[in-house]
């Protein structure tokens, strides 16, 4: 076919319909291959009805379309979105707001967002605390004070860092920066069914357990004699309940404390009335016909009780970070200075992060981390976070424990002073004092 014979196209100036000579307009009786000039004058645009003279020759643009077929950069939302309204989430909101009075902040939280101090939960029974007395500020008033949009009872279900999109059970959010403060969840071994074992990791679960413990003295089995287990055992016994504390180790906090100290802690708990059973592995938990729970151990011991509380450690939820391909190593990996995750514009702080491969689940670093994130968001590189081992304080009434520094596995402990009331020890490693411990 020569150039002169090439099929031409004509465009309707009113609606943009294109008449292609090759295709014709069969619906209007114009056969394929009909030249535009041969179309009867009474023909009208099949789309909008204007007449033939309203058409003009249409030359297909030679230039490439302005829009690429390949995916391009994505549009960005505006504002900071925070996942979690525990101490880390609110600290982040406070810090961001302090540095920027105008930036939109949204908090997404599975609970109602009320603010309380989580460490108080493990000493709350003997203080006769209530939900009301524990709440320092309601979520709604805090949100109002800080100018935060608070999305309560909302779960973050998906994250696409490339889209700057967080998906929740109440719709999707776009962000300029996302701050993950989702915390850590109780790790429940397979032998402990969730519907029979309490885990005290937030206010709501404490309030629900308390309803079961408030009527009369109860028999409680606590599984796990770490920090939370020891504190709860101490608190429950002080509040008048019968407490059996089980652990795979032979003494409470045995993986952290030197033997001399953990033995002293064990004796103090026992003096207070706690029955400590060490060196046992729970293999089953069932509810019997009377509604009582029965805990059985590998060595054949059996404990009947009214309530079971598992304090078997914490883990960071992997689903959200894994779906977003965030680097993860026992927690969400963050830059130790800026708290940025492996994804651009996504930060994390508090119980959900790991720094140099180690999770850090203490209160003290949280506000510093929040400040570092807020500074990074504002482009202030001069306020990096510096990670120091936090001071650990065990709030066991029967024998308080305070630890400064971070103990190491190979370190040698020595006694500094020892009286009936108090034991002071230090740990040396590589010729340096790395840790000081005071019991009593």
């Amino acid at each position, binding site marked *: 076919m020569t150039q002169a014979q090439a099929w031409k196209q004509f465009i309707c100036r009113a609606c943009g319909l294109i008449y292609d000579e090759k295709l014709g307009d069969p619906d209007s009786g114009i056969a394929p291959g009909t030249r535009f000039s041969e179309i009867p004058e009474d023909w009208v645009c099949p789309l909008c009805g204007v007449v033939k003279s309203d058409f003009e020759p249409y030359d297909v643009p030679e230039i490439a379309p*302005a829009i690429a077929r390949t995916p391009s950069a994505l549009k960005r939302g505006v504002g900071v979105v925070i996942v979690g309204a525990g101490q880390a989430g609110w600290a982040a909101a406070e810090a961001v707001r302090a540095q920027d009075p105008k930036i939109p902040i949204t908090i997404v939280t599975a609970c109602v967002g009320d603010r309380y101090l989580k460490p108080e939960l493990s000493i709350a029974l003997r203080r006769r605390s209530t939900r009301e007395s524990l709440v320092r500020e309601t979520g709604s008033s805090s949100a109002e004070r800080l100018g935060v949009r608070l999305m309560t009872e909302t779960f973050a279900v998906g994250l696409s860092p490339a889209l700057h999109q967080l998906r929740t059970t109440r719709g999707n959010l776009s962000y300029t920066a996302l701050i993950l403060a989702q915390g850590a969840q109780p790790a429940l071994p397979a032998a402990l069914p*969730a519907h029979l074992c309490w885990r005290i990791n937030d206010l709501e679960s404490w309030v629900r357990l308390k309803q079961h413990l408030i009527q009369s003295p109860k028999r409680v089995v606590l599984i796990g004699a770490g920090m939370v287990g020891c504190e709860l055992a101490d608190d429950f016994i002080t509040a008048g309940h019968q407490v059996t504390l089980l652990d795979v180790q032979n003494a409470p906090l045995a993986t952290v404390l030197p033997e001399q100290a953990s033995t002293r802690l064990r004796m103090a708990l026992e003096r207070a009335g706690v029955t400590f059973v060490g060196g046992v592995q729970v293999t089953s938990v069932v509810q019997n016909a009377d509604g009582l729970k029965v805990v059985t151990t590998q060595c054949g011991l059996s404990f009947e009780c009214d309530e079971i509380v598992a304090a078997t450690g914490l883990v960071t939820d992997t689903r959200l970070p894994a779906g977003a391909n965030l680097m993860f190593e026992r927690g969400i990996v963050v830059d130790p200075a800026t708290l940025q995750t492996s994804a651009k514009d996504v930060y994390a702080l508090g119980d959900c992060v790991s720094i140099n491969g180690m999770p850090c689940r203490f209160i003290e670093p949280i506000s510093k981390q929040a400040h570092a994130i807020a500074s990074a968001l504002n482009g202030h590189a001069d306020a990096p976070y510096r990670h120091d081992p936090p001071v650990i304080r065990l709030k066991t009434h029967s024998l308080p424990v305070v630890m400064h520094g971070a103990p190491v596995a190979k370190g040698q402990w020595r006694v500094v002073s020892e009286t009936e009331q108090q034991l002071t020890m230090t740990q040396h490693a590589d010729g340096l004092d790395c840790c000081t411990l005071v019991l009593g």
Partner: protein
Amino acid sequence: MNPTDVAPAVLATDPQTLLASVKQLSSGVLAQAAYKIDHEGFYPADIMRSLGQAGAFGVHLDRNGQQVGLAINVMREIAQQCGSTGFLTWCHDVCGLYMEQSGNPALMGALLDEHASANTLGGTALSNPMKTFAGIEKMLLRAKRVAGGYRVSGALPWVSHIGRGQYCGAIAGVYLDDGSASHEIMFLLRCTDDVVLRQCPEFSGMEGTSTWGIRLDDYFVSEDALIADPAKPFIARVRAAFVLLQTGWALGVTQGSIESMLEVEPLLGHVNKFLNDRPDELQAELDDLSARIQTLARTPYDGSTDYVISVLDARAQSAELVLRASQSALLHQGARGYMMNTAPQRRIREAHFVAIVTPAIKHLRWEMARLSKPVMPA
């Protein structure tokens, strides 16, 4: 009969050949029929058979290597040209999945061969049971045990891809003689003369999906027709695959919408550039989502809560994306896309069906919230 003894109904073709055949059928006969299917109630049974012969409805089955990701891509190709047929593809795919996963030899041999090649057609009636298991609705079909099987009564408002001589997977609650609820059964409901098929009211679109109201009155379910007894563990096992497969349909309607935007770009790009949700942005989101779906499709029977939430999230996102894409396609095309018989106009109806069919966006969020709550003692 051991399932591995069953010869595949469809000879294994390589994915490229399969996708090319599906594309040829979809962009040809199917694209031409799309308006008739959507608006005039034309049920594309013959097109479904052609697609079945090409191997479009068997690749997700265990017997063909459980290629769920490929099945999603096939469905996407079909739905790009016609959302209704994309939906029929999903109905057909999950019905085959029920038959194979049933472990019932009576459903896994010749019947499944015929189904996978679309010589016979059948769908799914699990909208109500799925919502019942999620705590949203009450079970509509009731069964009682009789010699050799069950008798089932009740009515379902609308079931797609059925008709006389066709069939669907259905679930009924079993009640004991004292009236107490016992458990649930899942069975292959054959639309014989014993089954009343009632004409549905006119829908705004998707009219050619052969959707009927079903009424059963002491309908006999023989043991040969049982897919699962009890049904709950079976549903727990197949639920994620059931939901994940639907995404192929949503992705296809989204891709079709993007193509409609690109189609008018030479002509209208100079003004369309002022619109939100431009084709390149939507394509980026679609690609991101598709990649995640393909990863999920590698383990369709992972029953963990984390996996199920990820599948529900992908399904919800696909529904949200198709709504935005179909609307944006209409805005990009302007009046030409507002014509009743144009694809952008049709896709508005298709996209809304993606968003409201079980599991609808609101159900997906309800279920994700339910699954996200930690279990605690009562």
